[in-house]
């Protein structure tokens, strides 16, 4: 394994930061502005993609920017896990940017320049978090992401978004400042470093009780992961425009939360350390509760986006659960689920948005017979939900397969049971939607026979993501390899 010093990670992070002034200056010309977004997205993706071969060979790319104090610098390190996440986020950013053109123009939203600028900033933070070499840098980008998302959540500037924005900040900032920050400083105080090391940074400084408290502070502190009881910001944040919900609240923001937990579990505590104190079980328990409870809540939601949000909360905990298993297969499955869930869930959100653009409908109960009006959208929706439920032939099946293998490997029968139950629950909250969409009598149908698809710019992206979801079943190699590599690295060989 080699360590390569390169400026590429920095470039990848900065591309979408530097494009912001350009966006602001071209705010009068929407077409110019949007082409800049697209170009910057593609450049970002290409830079990240160009690092892929190096990473796949088992190497790392590092870059130190600022030396703050020994062991806690502002530094980047690209490894398999970070690569996996960055690849997902940056590729979906391109698709989302196309989609958001269609969506925002379709609804004639206000403040589009502000919207795209903060969107770009949020993506900067996401990639930065993915490439962080230590907890300090990760925390930095984590906070940047929280703050840059706030204007997106309250984009509508009405009373409802104000309340949601408040809830969003209370949970996200409250936990990160109140829990993560002290925990992080305590780690630094105890060990003198915050670097993510394969075996963790603790070597006997912690007793079991304090380690437990610290771990829980981290797990709950990264509230973006939607771990209960700090999850309720996510449904609230659904007041944001759909591209935000799609990219940020299904992929970037929430996965940064999960990603941070993975980093802390593997890089700060270390697998061996957790195994020796049997702390993985704590995390797994919390995750399991979240999975089951959130799936049950999702059943009761009538607003489509909120149902998706609760589904997201559950799916995120799969990832946490997979990592908390601390077995090779389990971790691989967990990390793979980052990618698989991303493609699946973003399709679903795109569809929800497309429905809203085309018909103005938000509630499932109003969507009876919509399958005939929007056949392409609903077909993609079907594909996406298959992936989330974890049925072949979609990518979601593969990750869930690995997760199940992981539970068997670790001999956790209860967790296996949790996964299977929740898959059933997933099916239970998705299937009624199709049933209502396609199988209804003419009298029940709320839509005419005419096809009313959303604008091209909305439909094309969701078809693409649906196809990718489908394709990943047959060709999961890049993500699977990366996840496998990462798991191998974390488990020490």
């Amino acid at each position: 394994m080699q360590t390569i010093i390169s400026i590429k990670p920095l470039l990848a992070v900065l591309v979408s930061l530097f494009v912001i002034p350009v966006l602001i200056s071209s705010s009068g010309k929407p077409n110019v502005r949007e082409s800049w977004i697209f170009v910057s997205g593609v450049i970002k993706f290409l830079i990240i993609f160009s690092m892929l071969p190096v990473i796949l060979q088992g190497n790392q790319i590092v870059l130190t920017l600022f030396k703050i104090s020994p062991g806690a610098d502002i530094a980047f390190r690209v490894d398999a896990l970070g690569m996996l996440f960055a690849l997902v986020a940056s590729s979906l950013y391109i698709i989302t940017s196309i989609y958001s053109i269609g969506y925002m123009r379709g609804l004639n939203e206000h403040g589009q320049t502000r919207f795209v600028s903060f969107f770009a900033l949020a993506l900067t933070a996401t990639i930065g978090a993915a490439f962080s070499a230590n907890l300090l840098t990760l925390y930095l980008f984590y906070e940047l992401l929280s703050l840059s998302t706030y204007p997106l959540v309250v984009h509508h500037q009405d009373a409802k978004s104000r309340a949601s924005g408040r809830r969003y900040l209370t949970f996200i900032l409250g936990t990160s400042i109140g829990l993560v920050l002290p925990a992080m400083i305590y780690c630094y105080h105890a060990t003198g470093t915050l670097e993510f090391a394969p075996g963790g940074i603790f070597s006997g400084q912690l007793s079991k009780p304090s380690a437990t408290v610290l771990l829980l502070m981290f797990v709950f502190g990264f509230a973006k992961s939607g771990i209960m009881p700090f999850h309720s910001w996510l449904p609230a944040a659904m007041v944001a425009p759909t591209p935000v919900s799609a990219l940020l609240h299904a992929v970037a923001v929430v996965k940064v939360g999960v990603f941070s937990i993975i980093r802390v579990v593997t890089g700060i505590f270390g697998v061996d350390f957790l195994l020796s104190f049997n702390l993985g079980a704590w995390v797994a328990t919390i995750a399991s509760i979240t999975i089951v409870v959130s799936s049950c809540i999702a059943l009761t939601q009538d607003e489509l986006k909120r149902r998706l949000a609760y589904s997201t909360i559950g799916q995120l905990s799969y990832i946490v659960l997979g990592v908390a298993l601390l077995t090779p297969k389990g971790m691989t499955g967990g990390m793979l689920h980052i990618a698989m869930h991303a493609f699946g869930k973003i399709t679903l959100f795109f569809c929800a948005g497309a429905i809203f653009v085309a018909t103005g409908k938000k509630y499932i109960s109003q969507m009876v017979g919509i399958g005939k009006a929007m056949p392409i959208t609903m077909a993609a929706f079907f594909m996406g939900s298959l992936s989330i439920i974890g049925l072949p032939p979609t990518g979601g099946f593969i990750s869930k397969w690995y997760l199940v293998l992981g539970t068997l490997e670790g001999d956790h029968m209860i967790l296996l049971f949790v996964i299977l139950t929740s898959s059933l629950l997933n099916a239970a909250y998705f299937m009624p939607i199709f049933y209502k969409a396609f199988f209804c009598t003419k009298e029940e149908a709320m839509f005419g026979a005419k096809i009313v698809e959303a604008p091209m710019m909305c439909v094309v992206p969701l078809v693409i993501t649906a196809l990718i979801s489908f394709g990943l079943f047959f060709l999961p190699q890049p993500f699977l390899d990366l996840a496998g590599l990462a798991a191998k690295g974390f488990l020490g060989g």
Partner: protein
Amino acid sequence: MDNYPVLIVVAPLLAALLAGFAAWIEERLSYPIALLGLAVSTFAAFEVLMQVIFFGPIRYEMAGWPPPMGIEYRIDLLNAMVLLIVSGIAFLNLLASYESVNQEIGDRTGSFYSIYCLFVTGLLGVTATGDLFNLYVLIEITSLTSYAMVAMGDRDRGALASLNYVFIGVIGASFYLLGVGYLYIQTGSLNMTDVAIILQDYHGSSTVLTAFVLCMVGVWIKMAFFPLHAWLPNAYSYSPVVFLRVVAPLMTKVMIYVMIRLMITVFGFNYIFKTLNFADAVVILATVAIIFGGVMALAQKNLKKMLAYIIISEIGYMVGGVWMGNQLGMTGAILHILNDALMTFAVFLGVGNIIYQLKDVDFSNLGGLFGKMPWTMAGFVLAAFSIIGIPPTCGFFSKWYLIMGAFEKGAYHFAIALIISSLICAVLFFRVFEICFFPSSSQDNKQKDVHAPGKIEEAPVSMLIVSGFVSLSLIVVGLFSGTIVNMIILPFLT
């Protein structure tokens, strides 16, 4: 040149006098004169800092008399840094103030610039001097000028707020003077280093203990440390913006510096932390100050008042950091002098711009401000992030060291207070952002389309440039705080 140390202080004084002249002869000249004086001072301070970093502390003997007979300037890393902060901020503030002085002071601007320069002279002199009594005289210059400037603000309340400030300020300065007298009677000297050497033989003396208590109480009154803070909110919130922007970041910070100087150079850590045993009590007091300031800030309905209480809370940070008595806490406190000066300045620059347009910063007036003054608000937001302590702004890093210091000392209550204070600040500022982000309710009725892009009514360009520059420097200083700690603070402490 060898005379840079004294030039730092003399240049603004000279500018004050010439501006005073110009006020009577050609009033328009006062502004450039004042600006030039402060620019020279900033340059000299920068040179001195470089000299001190590369060649070690500088001693400058006034009138050529060797201390302790004469007065000396003794400039080491700590006060070189503070000098640069003070002169730099004063200069930048003046640069941004031309329009708002014209708006607020109207006639007699010349005299105002003169008194402004005198205020800065006082602060710089306090920082540079190595003589206990000289320190008192310069504190009095600073105080007198602040009394005058506070009273020039709010037409109704300014004078009364200022008069109450006079009473408290005189008590503070007099306590300090008494402390110096007690030291003098025990040692016979007024030079700091000389006093420190003689004091080593008198650690058990009740006179020295009294002197220490008196000096500390005096300085605490001047810096508005809880529970001696009562004068600050009124005095600050009724003063004119120009003055507010310089007094809020600098006055308390210079007083913190004086406290550190007295503790390190004059009395010595051995005396304070080994012979005496009330350091823990002071840390607890600092904890209370932090929480109290935050809670009181929550109750305010006016931006200026809210920030004034945040200042009281920030003072708790630094006092607590110093009195923890370990290297980390000290590092945090000194770094926070720099950071807090910068971020308070940045936040008040934003407030100044808002006041320039709106005349008033009651929360009820702030609706829709992001649309109206986007650049001002951008700077304000960055400053607020720094006060909350969000990386990579500089406020995060000093908080980092302070919390580390608290962990090392085992002062968990202080660490928790810092975290809570961050949360409170987050609530405070996001409440402001929320008000500014959403259109105000009165506009809702008038305007049909609330989302229609409002007209941009920004402050003058000079104010915006300075505000932008300072806000960006928050990030730069934050990213280079490792360098600052390694080059300035750690060499000073060891």
